[in-house]
């Protein structure tokens, strides 16, 4: 996949846009293909490192998107931890061996996603090819009783409307470009402490609350990296009860109390 931007973890100043990838599965697939890894036997520790390294070098445009990537980071850390544990005792009638591999659920998702990506690429080719065939978009019939096709002017207006609606929506998404006045900006380390102390007061905390008061892109990146570092150091965990529901952050010890 050479058309994608490559990244170098050795150069932290080299930033890659997160939206190059369609989501965490896309990024993982890229890393797996890049390293020519067998998808059925993913070295989870290695790929987790690669994944986290990538996130440290990433540029953020979309905060919701960022949440999806953090959830995957957390999942990878959990799989890594489970791989280190001895397999739990299980009953005979339980299903096949594959089920025991903590990686299996992720592998299935990746395989399915890989097919979707391939199908999307093929559909894109079809679309490109077929865009050279133009259909009739207007014209009238001289026979009055069997009257006219839809007003072509109306068609144009609809398209304009859609465009206008889209740009309206775009203008509504928050922009983190209020730059100019030099602000006092905390470091990743300071931000990590800040997050932990907030979690001391209230836990769990919605992920969005961490980003609510941020005004600059730089602050957003700092917060994102702070959350990532806390996940890696297993100080916090992230959780999402409903798919694409609110992401919550809580202290790792509480998580143990809850689940264990």
């Amino acid at each position, binding site marked *: 996949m050479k058309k994608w931007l490559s990244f170098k973890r050795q150069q932290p100043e080299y930033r890659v846009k997160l939206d190059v990838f369609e989501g965490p599965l896309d990024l993982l697939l890229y890393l797996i293909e890049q390293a020519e890894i067998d998808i059925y036997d993913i070295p989870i520790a290695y790929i987790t490192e690669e994944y986290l390294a990538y996130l440290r070098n990433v540029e953020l445009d979309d905060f919701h998107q960022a949440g999806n990537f953090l959830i995957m980071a957390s999942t990878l850390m959990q799989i890594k931890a489970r791989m280190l544990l001895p397999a739990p005792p299980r009953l005979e009638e339980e299903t096949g061996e594959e089920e025991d591999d903590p990686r299996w659920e992720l592998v299935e998702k990746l395989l399915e996603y890989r097919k979707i990506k391939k199908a999307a690429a093929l559909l894109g080719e079809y679309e490109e090819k077929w865009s050279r065939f*133009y*259909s*009739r*978009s*207007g*014209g*009238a*019939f*001289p*026979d009055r*009783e*069997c*009257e*006219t*096709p*839809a*007003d*072509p*002017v*109306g*068609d*144009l207006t609809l398209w304009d409307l859609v465009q206008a609606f889209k740009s309206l929506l775009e203008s509504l998404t928050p922009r983190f470009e209020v730059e100019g006045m030099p602000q006092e900006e905390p470091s990743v380390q300071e931000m990590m402490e800040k997050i932990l102390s907030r979690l001391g007061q209230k836990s769990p905390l919605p992920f969005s609350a961490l980003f609510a008061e941020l005004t600059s892109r730089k602050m957003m990146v700092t917060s994102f990296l702070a959350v990532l570092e806390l996940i890696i150091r297993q100080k916090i965990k992230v959780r999402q009860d409903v798919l694409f529901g609110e992401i919550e952050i809580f202290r790792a010890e509480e998580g143990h109390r809850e689940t264990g």
Partner: protein
Amino acid sequence: MRLGKIKGIIEALIFASSEPVSLREIAEILKIHEATAGELVEELKEEYEKNRRGIQIVQVAGGYHFVTNPDYAEFVRKMKKVPRQAPLSQAALETLAVIAYKQPVTRAEIEALRGVKVESSLNTLLERGLIEEKGRKEGPGRPILYVTSSYFLRHFGLNDLNELPKVEDPADNLSTEVIINAE
């Protein structure tokens, strides 16, 4: 470029456009003279006519477009997926007629002629793109003036307003010419 290819491209242009295509646009796209474009379009038009094809090229509202051959209209009418619009109501048709023959005309003038309020039929006609506003009349209140659109010409298969059928009203001593020039 081969002549056949040029004619093919002209065919594609006329077919794909949502509005009748002017000779000027064809000439610009193909980088040929407008007169040459005119000759080629006429040749194409004749070929379709001569061979009694199912589709024909017609000239309306200052441009060319494809229509189905009117001889086959009874079959086309049997189709399910021909986009249809509800026919214009009698009221809307009358209002349209007044505008067509008396343009530019104000709402009060139409109402005076038809003897009823015309607001709703004006809206219908505006919505369907058959008429449009064109400036304001000098005088008290500076009322809006209405004219027919180029879509009106296409809708009724006319090249220009002079092709409007002449209306002779025996009970009325105003000739069509007088009506047309009423403003």
